[in-house]
């Protein structure tokens, strides 16, 4: 069970076991017979997962509790996996978490941690440093599933129509299932592990290739002549059945997604996003956004685009900002002024100050926009957004090679301090690096991470000459919509 968690260099099952044990102990404290109602959403590979998008708390309400918990979580990780010798960070929250960790370590000097360190580096990234990435539409398979249907604790609910089992000649198919089809998505499923991080445009070919392999495998039964051969075939049957089932599911999902991605509106939206991210016309009122407002498209979609434009222009011109605000308030209601205020406080929507647009500098230095993207066989992380390379992941990539010193200037433009801390290890635990051995870096996204960013990091881990493996921790798995939603002021 959950074998996919233990494959990597870092055995995540250790953490899982620790949490489980904790839960059992907790239950054990409740003496007597117990009536436990399990929410099936919580029974995924990690068991209990609670999520925060800290942006609202930290930046709007000035509440640092989630940072405190993040720091505590990191201390726990260190208790399990050993002290992490290097800590890097960028952003205000990252600085604070690092401070708390140092402080907790000081308070806890009594016992030396004697676990051999698994991680070489810790990178703390504040979501505030990279507001752009979550706003863009993710284009990996998993990312799109999340964008369109929303993945909740590794479960997704899908419209059932495409999943009706093909029945032949029974009842005329009157009883269509009305309940949403619920699927668990994680790397325990072989096929999903293969396609989850691919650009959606590359998923189709993999699926059809798989289909051919499976049907070929089933065809082999005709070749099975001897009893031994038949026996061998039968023994493989369960595995093949499972593969076929999973293929059928993902083909259906891919069809559902394709319906959306081929729609005109999706294409238009994507075009506008890509224009913004490559720096085209970010300083005037965008026609498509105006149209969306006029047609009363979902407010979240509109806000996402407006925020994207604002971020890609280091803030909108006052006139443009006022225009959008006015249109939004007039069309969706004046009460949304609170939401707009929240977005402004969080820095997602703002007026340009000083009349300087820093984004082009950042884009060029960090190579955030790549014109030639190979979606089928990617060579760069920009494939996850079909052109845009997520800033956060680029920072991680540059940290491992050649180091942040080369991009000091850009780091200064990005909000929040950047820093480096060292946690000295006792001599016995210091690692002697084998030649060719990869470093392991733990990246902690404070404030949430998108599936596309995870895909990009997995891609970096798999690069042969990458030299670094990444383990990702975060306070929340998010996408632009859930993010904006969290920032919206709900009417009371």
């Amino acid at each position, binding site marked *: 069970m959950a074998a996919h968690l233990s494959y990597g260099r870092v055995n995540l099952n250790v953490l899982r076991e*620790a*949490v489980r*044990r*904790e*839960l*059992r*102990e*907790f*239950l*054990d*404290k*409740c*003496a*007597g*017979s*117990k*009536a436990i*109602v399990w929410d099936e959403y*919580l029974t995924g590979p990690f068991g*209990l*997962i*609670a*999520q925060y998008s800290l942006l609202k708390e930290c930046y709007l*309400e*000035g*509440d*640092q509790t*989630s940072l*405190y*918990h*993040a*720091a*505590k*979580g990191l*201390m*726990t*990780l260190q*208790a399990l996996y050993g002290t992490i010798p290097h800590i890097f960070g960028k952003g205000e929250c990252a600085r604070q978490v690092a401070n*708390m960790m140092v402080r907790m370590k000081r308070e*806890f000097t*009594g016992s030396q941690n004697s676990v051999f360190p698994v991680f070489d580096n810790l990178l703390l990234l504040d979501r505030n440093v990279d507001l752009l990435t979550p706003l863009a539409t993710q284009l990996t398979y998993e990312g799109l599933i999340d964008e369109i249907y929303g993945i909740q604790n590794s479960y997704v609910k899908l419209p059932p129509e495409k999943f009706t089992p093909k029945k032949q000649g029974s009842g005329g198919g009157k009883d269509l299932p009305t309940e949403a089809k619920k699927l668990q998505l994680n790397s325990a499923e072989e096929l999903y592990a293969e396609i989850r991080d691919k650009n959606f445009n590359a998923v189709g070919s993999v699926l059809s290739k798989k289909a051919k392999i499976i049907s070929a495998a089933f065809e082999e039964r005709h070749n099975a002549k001897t009893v031994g051969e038949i026996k061998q075939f039968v023994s493989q049957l369960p595995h093949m059945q499972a593969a076929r089932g999973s293929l059928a599911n993902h083909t259906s999902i891919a069809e559902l997604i394709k319906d959306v991605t081929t729609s005109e509106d999706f294409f238009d939206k994507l075009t506008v996003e890509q224009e913004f991210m490559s720096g085209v016309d970010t300083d005037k009122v965008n026609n498509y956004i105006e*149209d969306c407002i*006029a047609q*009363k498209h979902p407010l979240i979609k509109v806000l996402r685009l407006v925020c994207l434009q604002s971020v890609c222009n280091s803030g909108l011109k006052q006139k443009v900002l006022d225009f959008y605000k*006015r*249109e939004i*308030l*007039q*069309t*969706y*209601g*004046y009460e949304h*002024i*609170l939401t707009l*205020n929240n977005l402004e406080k969080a820095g997602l929507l703002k007026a340009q100050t000083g009349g300087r647009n820093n984004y082009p500098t950042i884009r060029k230095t960090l190579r955030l926009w790549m014109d030639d993207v190979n979606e089928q066989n990617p060579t760069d992380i920009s494939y996850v957004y079909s052109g845009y390379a997520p800033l956060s992941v680029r920072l991680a990539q540059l940290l491992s090679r050649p180091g942040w010193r080369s991009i000091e200037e850009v780091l200064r433009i990005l909000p929040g301090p950047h820093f480096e801390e060292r946690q000295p290890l006792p001599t016995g635990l210091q690692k002697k690096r084998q030649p060719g051995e990869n470093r392991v870096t733990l990246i902690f996204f404070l404030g949430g991470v998108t599936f596309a960013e995870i895909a990009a990091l997995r891609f970096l881990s798999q690069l042969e000459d990458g030299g670094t493996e990444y383990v990702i*921790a*975060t*306070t929340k798995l998010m996408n632009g919509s859930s993010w904006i939603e969290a920032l919206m*002021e709900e*009417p009371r």
Partner: protein
Amino acid sequence: MLEATELQLPGCFAALSPSSAPLATVPFSPFSMPHSLFRRAGPVAEPDAVLRGRARCGRGPLPDSLLHPLFLGAVSSVTASGEIQKGPGPAFLSLQMSRIKGDEEEYWNSSKFKAFTFDDEDDELSQLKESKRAVNSLRDFVDDDDDDDLERVSWTGEPVGSISWSIKETAGNSGSAPEGRDQLKGRNSFYTQLPKPPSTYSLSSFFKGKEWAELDLGVSSPCLMDYSNDWSPSDTVRRLRRGKVCSLERFRSLQDKLQLLEEAVSMHDGNVITAVLIFLKRTLSKEILFRELEVRQVALRHLIHFLKEIGDQKLLLDLFRFLDRTEELAVSVVFVSVGSLFTNLPFSAEDSAHIQDHYTLLERQIIIEANDRHLESAGQTEIFRKHPRKASILNMPLVTTLFYACFYHYTESEGTFSSPINLKKTFKIPDKQYVLTALAARAKLRAWNDVDALFTTKVGVLTLVLLRLLEREGLRRPLKFSNWLGHTKKRAPIGFHRVVEILHKNSAPVQILQDYVNLVEDVDTKLNLATKLKCHDVVIDTCRDLKDRQQLLAYRSKVDKGSVEEEKIDAILSSSEVRTELKWLALQGHGKEYQYCSGPAGH
């Protein structure tokens, strides 16, 4: 009682106990559910509400939801903050008490939870009685237990609830003072002698790994002080942070309280900060509290958030007045309660225009709503009879209101409140927005004349008549004329393809659609639209104008056999004008087209 017994209250007691260690030590806390509830429940719960809620847990059936382990977590966190409020506890005693059903009612009916608050007005005697009775009933409950143990759990100021947990903590804490061990034994005996139901078995006995003790990160000496009352502010805060019970009432002087607050703030744990703030809010006068918080911004933000969560608008208003930050509040108040509060609040310059608009809009809506409701019920007005209103217009966005006005009050003169033009002027609605909304409303009513008028620039009556005549005269080629007409006289601020879309959505007749499709300037868009909407004439004429024979041939298969359109296509295909043109094309090297072109020509 059913649920309560099922849950086996001693267990529940453990789970509810404020110092529930698992909560405090679930590794990797951002991932763990209990904390999230902790966060939620902590600040939200108002002290009194907490106490009431807790009382209910103790005496009566537990709500079903509480059976969920995660909710147990939530409950315990609530009590954590509640406990801070009310000091050590009768409430926890009561949980145990509830096992003795006989005593229960009496206990609950008579108990006072204010035993340890300072602002209590009851005389101390009755409190003492109360506590004595509580202790006595406890004696019944653990009747064969040592007296020593009883003393430990009675009113030394030490909450009973922490006992079971300090066992765990001390157990995990190897090599501490021997005296601590002795205490541990005693306490263990207290706890283990509780009758356990047969179905209980210890899960954790399977999993008692020694590394687990290490995981219990922050646990060290402070738990030895469980029985002393003299924690320094920093110790108190540290205990609070671990979710343990401790009384804040000991901190009497302002200096102490402020030190406590500062310690809490330096921990960054919002639950602790909020807990201390609740205590301060209760025990300090407003003026002093505000004054002190003004120089402590972190704590101030927490208090503001807390007040927002519990909806204490009055205190919030006082606070903002004190801080001179009224505009911030004003915005939020407006949308919480639309009332007389509204106008006399100061707003930031940026927001005030929007707020003023909002106010004006609401005023309008109230007038319109009253008026129209009257009209509708009178049943005299045709439009309301034909299209009864679906919902009240109150609190709708401006654009929706405009749509409403265009739907029901389109022809009204500019002077009335409900006239669309008046709305447009009052709120400075941009042309685009106005045209779109009006178009949608009129198209929905199928008032095509109004639609026409929207896009027709004002021309003299005579010109209009002339144009109409021309149009009628040119019946053979009406499209050419209307095209010419459109280019000169029809303008839309939104692009005609959008107009066509809206018209199509409202199922406008083909003739009308065609007129507007023809007004689309970009030829490709026009062709696409016309093909999509089956405006055959437009497609055919456009192809003819483009001299695109191939497309025309392809389109021939799409129209009905033997229809007027087919004839028309055939006529064009065989007409000499097109043929020569295509021959010319063929000479350019389009051999295939030449084939096509010679085909129909032969007929």
